[in-house]
């Protein structure tokens, strides 16, 4: 059967976890696997042992949306894969989408699973903020934007010696990389916290954050939040958990009024124990939580404070 291509993502000289997750997904679909790297990452092709072949698509080692998309297109044209896996990430959005348009092939976003007989593919996608699971099909070459969590990064991390070849895309300079900016340290580094109380939209208003802070004081936790609270300016960016925020692995993660969109879950799913309190019993957060309460968060938190104080 025609093969599977994985467009590898890297940051600061290391392949990202999503790269190994995609290699694991490719391995489970089965068939010849080709990994595509950019810049100097070809030197680390030995880490991509699940792949039979590695194509170095050139470009700078620092990500560039235009030249990476162009390099990826050259790689696809040289290899004719049946499925192309691209990360459903900030970097992947600007590679996978132009690739689909420029090759004239279908694309499925937010994939949590892919199956294929080599010609006909079935994609499972998480849509509507994780509230719906959608199955879609496509025939012939197609692109899947893979969500973090779709594969097992540890299983995809296999050393080996795939054969190495090279293609080059167009040299484009309409978009120019300037610099990487590390996050502000903030007052608290939530990636080091042992207990986190994370609040989401369900908290209601800015003034209501106080009750979560009160509970945090009682159980010696740090306050974190989902994206909307940062966008609203209620909490600093350094407190944001999720895809574009921090990835945290505390011993205990208490989610208050967080529905559990895939972007949030990506940042906290590896916490040792997750407790979710949300009035919507269908909230996707209950999928990843170990314990859940489908109750009004204010009632629960007030009672917790009273009992634990």
């Amino acid at each position: 059967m025609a093969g599977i291509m994985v467009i590898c993502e890297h940051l600061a000289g290391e392949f990202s976890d999503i790269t190994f997750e995609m290699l694991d997904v490719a391995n489970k679909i089965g068939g010849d696997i080709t990994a595509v790297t950019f810049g100097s990452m070809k030197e680390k092709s030995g880490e991509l042992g699940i792949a039979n072949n590695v194509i170095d698509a050139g470009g700078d080692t620092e990500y560039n949306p235009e030249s990476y998309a162009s390099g990826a297109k050259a790689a696809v044209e040289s290899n004719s894969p049946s499925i192309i896996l691209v990360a459903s990430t900030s970097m992947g959005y600007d590679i996978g989408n132009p690739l689909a348009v420029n090759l004239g092939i279908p694309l499925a976003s937010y994939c949590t699973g892919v199956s294929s007989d080599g010609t006909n593919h079935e994609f499972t996608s998480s849509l509507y903020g994780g509230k719906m699971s959608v199955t879609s099909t496509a025939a012939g070459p197609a692109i899947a934007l893979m969500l973090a969590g779709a594969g097992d990064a540890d299983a995809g991390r296999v050393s080996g010696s795939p054969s190495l070849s090279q293609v080059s895309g167009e040299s484009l300079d309409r978009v120019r990389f300037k610099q990487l900016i590390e996050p502000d340290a903030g007052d608290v580094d939530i990636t080091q916290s042992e207990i986190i109380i994370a609040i989401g939209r369900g908290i209601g208003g800015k003034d209501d954050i106080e009750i979560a802070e009160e509970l945090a004081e009682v159980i010696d936790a740090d306050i974190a939040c989902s994206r909307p609270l940062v966008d609203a300016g209620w909490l600093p960016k350094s407190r944001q958990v999720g895809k574009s925020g921090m990835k945290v692995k505390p011993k205990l993660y208490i989610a208050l009024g967080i529905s559990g969109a895939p972007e949030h879950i990506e940042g906290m799913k590896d916490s040792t124990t997750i407790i979710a309190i949300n009035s919507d019993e269908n909230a996707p957060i209950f999928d990843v939580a170990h314990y859940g309460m489908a109750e009004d968060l204010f009632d629960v938190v007030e009672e917790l404070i009273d009992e634990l104080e």
Partner: protein
Amino acid sequence: MKIAVLLKWVPDLVEELEVDDDGIGIDTDDLKFKLNEFDDHALEEALQIANDGDEVVAIAIDGDGTEKMLYTAIAKGASSGIRLTGGSNSNTANLAAGFATALDGGNYDLILTGVQSVDDLDGQLGPILAANMGLPCVSVVSSLNVSGGVATVTKEYSGGIVAEFEVDLPAVLGIQAARETPRYAPVSKIRQVQQSTDLAEKSVSGSSTSGTIITAMSEPETGGGAKMLDDVEDLIEILKGLGVS
């Protein structure tokens, strides 16, 4: 500078979603819709960077909610609104085809749209549109400054890391977050705009097939992972078991 802001009407996720009778879409009867929240950020950012003499044009494909989106955008400060007739908003390929026709020849310096929407299964509008129009694109943008035909943007990666890029204009940007919380337009102001302003209309043709076909939709199994607790006493026992007190 002439800035286009592309707007999309999407289901409000605060509502409970149900699968329709065909099993391949959501039941939209009685469902509340709203402006895609990222598009609201794109509009806010456009209004923030626009100086005197700059033009901010809000554009939407004709359908439910279009008038409300466009009049609200004008009430917030957009210079004008364009309703695109004859297009389809059923998927990203269609949206991109319609917007590309409308934007072509419009001499826009910047085209802003939300980074993604809750139902863009066949791809994110910004990069799909940019590829259709042959323009550069940066997605997941959380800051934007324009000077001398070049935009300086930050693109959010993961782990709180952002990368700064320069982008030659004209360009398409997928906005993640505006520098300030999107402004609010009072209903009275929107009504006033509605009575005093005419929306421009532009006919766009062509629909584009996305190539992916939805064959099933279902609510993911919930509560699968979580042991659901009925009262706070149980929760306290668990917390104490974890050494929290």
